[in-house]
């Protein structure tokens, strides 16, 4: 099927190409299927490359050493010449496939060279084109209602700068029009209250928001992310544990969401320190792809308003199209009542946060500030990504591909593997699909088997498998994925 949008956008003689696929338009030489050519997997060159790397860099988390020159479209190549269909995409951070021609063009441009060779201290000496780069890219993609942006360097950095904005906002509100007191100015230099207040950010069990010290204090995914690191004593609320399939458990699930909302409210009421903001993901990704319904998110929005707490939605992993909408929270929030702050990174390549309230810009300059305040070269890439998504209508195609994958996985898992694979989720969330195994070991075994068969897939949480393909992943790629999932399961079980 081809949508009306496509028809109105493109000229007659190109319809056939678009009908075929955006991926073949971008990547005429994309492989037709995975190619595993090394005798062993991982291959021998990979092993030797890794041991070289080990001399100066912690390489132990490496799945394989990639050859990015030979990677193309939805296929990632490794140094042994193997080509894997990639549904992990650099931990969910490649939007348009490998070696996308439009990105190659943007990255070969004069504009890019100037940005790379002359990295500015953006808040002191911005370049004459930064405003237009923002306007035509990052800001054009802004979630409805949030018309300003502060740029940063990574998801952790985006969240922490958002926390800073929230803390300063909250303190300014309390202070009213008065200036900092002498006591505040003195105590802050000793890291003591009132200048350095015991304020907090509330996050949810199994949430993941990064690994620096403020963001790590709100990350509640796994001990390995947090052990041995000092953290702030901030509150943690329960996140709903939904039962699947959703249609079958709607009453239980609503009760579960009500329970979590009530406990969150109780926590807000009893917490001894001021809570400046609540941070939540539209889907808890690292924590296991845990979903909640619009009822829960709109309930949170009501709570935060009632208690004058800011609501930060962390779209680092869920944003930029994979859910079938540009921002995943658009599935969940009343469009007239959006969150206060939305953070982004990963697939957008540029990072930062969107906001609406002018007061989230601190009352004085040099408070939300650092040397670089973002990176124009990444903002140029974000602009290209946004424009390609719109031009090629990739939100629509991602929704379609996601529905196709979901329906086929549902059929497969309801069949002979129903005791092996559980909790298929992500219906109507584009390709942000996940499912569980019974144990971490079974899940890891499955992921390795899939790689051996030519598909790179990632895990999350303790026992979950998450799909995070690019936005140019299509039905024909989905068919290969589905076949290999079935083949791998059949071999293992």
């Amino acid at each position, binding site marked *: 099927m081809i949508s009306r949008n496509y028809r109105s956008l493109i000229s007659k003689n190109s319809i056939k190409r678009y009908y075929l696929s955006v991926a073949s338009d971008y990547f005429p030489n994309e492989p037709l299927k995975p190619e595993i050519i090394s005798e062993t997997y991982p291959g021998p060159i990979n092993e030797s490359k890794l041991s070289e790397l080990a001399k100066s860099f912690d390489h132990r988390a490496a799945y394989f050493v990639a050859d990015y020159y030979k990677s193309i479209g939805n296929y990632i190549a490794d140094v042994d010449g193997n080509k894997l269909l990639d549904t992990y995409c650099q931990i969910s951070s490649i939007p348009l496939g490998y070696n996308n021609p439009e990105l190659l063009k943007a990255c070969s441009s004069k504009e890019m060279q100037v940005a790379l060779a002359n990295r500015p201290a953006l808040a002191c000496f911005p370049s004459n084109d930064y405003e237009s780069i923002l306007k035509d890219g990052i800001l054009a993609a802004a979630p409805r209602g949030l018309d300003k942006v502060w740029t940063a360097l990574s998801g952790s950095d985006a969240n922490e700068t958002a926390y800073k904005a929230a803390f300063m906002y909250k303190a300014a509100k309390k202070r009213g029009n008065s200036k900092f007191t002498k006591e505040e100015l003195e105590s802050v*230099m000793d890291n003591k209250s009132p200048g350095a207040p015991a304020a907090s950010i509330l996050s949810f069990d199994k949430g993941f928001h990064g690994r*620096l*010290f403020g963001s790590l204090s709100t990350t509640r995914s796994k001990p390995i992310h947090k052990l041995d690191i000092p953290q702030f004593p901030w509150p943690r609320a329960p996140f709903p544990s939904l039962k699947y399939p959703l249609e079958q458990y709607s009453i239980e699930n609503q009760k579960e969401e009500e329970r979590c909302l009530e406990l969150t409210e109780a926590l807000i009421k009893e917490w001894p320190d001021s809570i400046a903001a609540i941070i939540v993901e539209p889907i808890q990704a690292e924590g296991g792809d845990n979903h909640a319904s619009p009822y829960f998110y709109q309930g949170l929005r009501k709570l935060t308003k009632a208690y004058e707490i800011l609501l930060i939605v962390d779209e680092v992993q869920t944003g930029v199209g994979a859910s079938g909408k540009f921002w995943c929270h658009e599935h969940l929030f009343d469009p007239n009542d959006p969150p206060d702050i939305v953070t982004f990174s990963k697939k957008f390549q540029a990072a930062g946060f969107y906001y609406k309230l002018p007061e989230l810009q601190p009352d004085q300059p040099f408070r939300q500030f650092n040397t670089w305040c973002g990176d124009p070269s990444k903002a140029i890439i974000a602009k290209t990504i946004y424009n390609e998504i719109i031009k090629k209508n990739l939100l629509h195609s991602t929704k379609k591909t996601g529905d196709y994958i979901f329906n086929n996985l549902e059929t497969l898992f309801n069949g002979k593997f129903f005791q092996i694979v559980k909790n298929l989720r992500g219906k109507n969330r584009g390709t942000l699909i996940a499912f569980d195994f019974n144990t971490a070991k079974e899940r890891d075994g499955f992921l390795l088997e899939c790689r051996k068969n030519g598909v790179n897939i990632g895990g999350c949480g303790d026992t979950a498998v998450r799909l995070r393909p690019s936005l140019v992943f299509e039905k024909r790629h989905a068919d290969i994925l589905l076949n290999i999932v079935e083949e791998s399961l059949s071999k293992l079980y």
Partner: protein
Amino acid sequence: MSISSQYYPDEPSAPTVNTTVIPGPVSQKAIADLGKVFDSRTVYFVADYEKSLGNYISDVDGNVYLDLYAQIASIALGYNNPALIKAAQSPEMIRALVERPALGNFPGKDFESLLSKILKVAPPGQDKVWSGLSGADANELAFKAAFMYYQQKKRGYSTEFTPEEEYSCMQNQSPGSPQLAVLSFERAFHGRLFATASVTRSKPIHKIDLPSFNWPKAEYPSYKYPLSKYEKENKQEDDRCLAIVENLIKTWEFPVAALIIEPVQSEGGDNHGSSYFFQGLRDITLQNDVVMIVDEVQTGVGATGKLWAHEHFNLSPAPDLVTFSKKFQSAGYWFHDDKFIPNKTYRQFNTWCGDPARMIIAGAIAEEIVKHDLVEHTAKVGDYIYNGLAKLADKYPKDIQNLRGKATFIAFDLESQNDRDNFLYQLKLNGVNCGGCAENSVRLRPTLTFENKHADIFLAAVDNVLSAKRQ
């Protein structure tokens, strides 16, 4: 042929200022437009980087300034350096930008050669690196490495975590999330994220309203200048400050796992410490099992006349961790002890673990510095500037106080903040972009291709501004 004429045959021979105010009218409009969507209150002027060249930065009003601030000390070789433009055009770069990898999981095949280029300029004694994205990020990653190291040393490197540790860390509580401190120094600046803001002690405006860790703050020596005249007093000051450090480590209410210090406190006012002081700190950290982190974010990459400023101190053994960013464009920390690699994977980890695009730039910068001996060059130019300023200090003793510095990493104080701010503004009108630090200091942070001919223009502008002020 001088290095700047080799790189920049078309570099302007003098600044041009066309506007009577700075920012000029075109900048002002651009700042207002940008301000609607991006906080632009800190903008000095809007730059035209395509037209900037070498040691000169252009703005949208057509003003061309000699730049001694260089993007807050972060431009190493000058604007539009041909070697960096070449690196930016290279197939490696384009690939690095288009296919940004999750380096910890899927490093590219050229990553190792990229690293080895960078490692060629590692400080003495360091042969490994972990990469980050900014100075604040680099320092926080170093803190994480230090905390994990400290706890592993206590627990045993390969000892498994206890269930209690695993449970309590998820509640942000001890013992899994222990009470451990990083000691820093008064007037220090290490960044503005939450742990780095906790060790930053420069100004209230950098920290106020943010929750902070209850970590100790020692004193950084305050010397009397000129150093040659006050040797005895300054050594006493070193001893006093060392005693405070040792006392804090021994008496703080919970263990001090690490100490972080800048070779020259930059944002905090260009405060220098002696070799004696730094060697003393190295001894104290060794005796008390405290990880020593040297923050070379602003001081590193040549400007002090050594590639890394702490090389001036002859520290032995080498510091445990040395952080870098800014002029190197790539960020992270150097280290040498394998035990700073955590015992398990995914402990020191994040999506990108650095940025190969910035590493390529860092590699090119390193290559140019070595090829053209730019550190030696900078030491010579620094002496020339220092002597020039010393003469001007005799002429204007109230406006050039406490002249201090190594190579081009030079600073001096004016009488008040107001005086300093006016001085910097007048310098801009005279075609020189220069920065301040702390309350009343001026800091010079030119590139490594700054030469005597540029210094002459700068010194003449200083003379001009100060003599006008006197009238």
